[in-house]
């Protein structure tokens, strides 16, 4: 039962506010030199297809809802891997006025990969470590035990409920698309006047 998911985990990648260094290393993992596809790992753009969430860069006010949304849409069991020092703690940009901090401020993180930029070997290592967590979480799910009771695991559902509520409110209030649309409409009206 536990085998198929860990033998072909699909990943989704989001660039928080990274400098691109870690992003291109994540991409480099997928290309012939490192080629993680030989392990069945596929990069998907759809959060509902993904098992492992790779985040590069730290979070800011603007992208918190985006990160939460991706996390909430992923099916259980799921693993979050923070890639690079910025995703871990904010790194060199920690003291910037527009940085909130590491990704763990927003969603529970299972594996932290150090480095600036994180090396492809380290990223692959982190993902493999994440597979262990994924197997544990799946075993727990299979046993009918709530995630929350697995030692060392995060209180998923509670956290998910909270974030879903918060996200729903935020979306209702100021979905970026809606806001931009409104702005565009206003502009058009102005032009018309």
């Amino acid at each position, binding site marked *: 039962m536990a085998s198929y998911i860990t033998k072909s985990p699909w990943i989704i990648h989001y660039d928080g*506010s990274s400098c691109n260094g870690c992003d291109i*290393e994540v991409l480099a993992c997928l290309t012939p*030199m490192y080629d993680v596809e030989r392990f069945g790992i596929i990069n998907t*753009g759809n959060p509902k297809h993904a098992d492992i969430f790779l985040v590069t*860069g730290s979070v800011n006010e603007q*992208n918190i809802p*985006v990160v939460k949304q991706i996390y909430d849409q992923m099916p259980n069991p799921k693993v979050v891997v923070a890639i690079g020092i910025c995703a871990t703690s904010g790194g*060199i940009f920690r003291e*910037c006025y527009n940085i909130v901090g590491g990704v763990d401020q927003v969603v529970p993180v299972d594996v932290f990969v150090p480095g600036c*930029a994180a090396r492809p070997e380290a990223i692959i290592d982190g993902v493999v470590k994440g597979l262990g967590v994924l197997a544990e979480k799946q075993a727990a799910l299979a046993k009918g035990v709530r995630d929350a009771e697995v030692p060392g695991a995060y209180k998923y559902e509670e956290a998910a409920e909270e974030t879903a509520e918060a996200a729903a409110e935020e979306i209702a209030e100021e979905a970026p698309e809606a806001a931009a649309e409104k702005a565009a409409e206003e502009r058009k009206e102005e032009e018309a006047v």
Partner: protein
Amino acid sequence: MAKRTIIPFGPQHPVLPEPIHLDLVIEDERVVEAIPSIGYIHRGLEKLVEKNEWPEMVYVIERVCGICSFGHGWGYCKTIEGNMGIEVPPRAEYLRTIWHELGRIHSHLLWLGLLADAFGFESLFMHTWRLRETILDIFEETTGGRVIFSVCKVGGLRKDVADEKLAEIAETLNGLKKEFRELAGVFLEDVSVKSRLAGVGVLSYDEAAALGTVGPVARGSGLNNDVRLDGHGAYAELGFEPCLETDGDCYARCKVRVREVFQSIDLIGRAIAKMPEGEIAAAVKGNPAGEFVGRMEQPRGEAYYYSKGAGAKFLERIRVRTPTNANIPALVKTLQGCDLADVPILVLTIDPCISCTER
């Protein structure tokens, strides 16, 4: 008249490696207007000058962007060196030129790969990125880092490269040139690739000039504003001539970058052959106390570095204006009237670096 619809594009979108948001106003399948909005990765890193002493600030500026990291480090060092009147030893200028041009090759190969991915040619993407690893290996062998390697410092360099190693690099690059020639043939001659690029997103010379376009986008429209002609580094001594194309479409922009890969390989070869002996760093005393506006030609185009000091350990202001910033108006212009299906390619041909843009 067809009904107008607004399609939001990004920030998280399967074809986007980075978060940018566009509101595409479309009529049927045609884009009428595009309104960009950014701000997803604004960090405010220029403000870190208040917390980092100026010799340390180079590490922050290098992290403006992980792709043209070396170039940003050089740009910062250049503005401080200009500010303090430091003369950099010739060997350091030559080595900086080599690393910067290696960075350009790696950046252009990265971009060509992403372009191949955008028009749906995945094996070409994989092959381009395989070649790119050659450059990253050279970086790793000479500096220890793959993408961010902090080898530049104010006054010169932190590390020298042995002459035997340089000879080895020249040989590796000759091999790369041969392999890349094969791929360049696919990018420039293949009928299906050409059909996606030729005649798409045309930007005329006049438009490019009026919109303040820079870098390969400008050169694809025949506009020559290559900063490498201003006398810095070793370019003048190496006999540098910019690559210009006149068609101004996606194909021309692709061709400029393909030609620049070959050109950079040649430039590095000549720099290695003419490499001067001597020191790699000049002594630095005191603190920057004036103002200086410096420029660099990054893989994506012209970048500005402004520094202002008051004779203290902490600078008063650092300002970086990156090439993508200057190319956004050109992007908005070329998107007008294009097919919705061509949007990813058009966004890519300005080689957007959002991390650079927002800092």
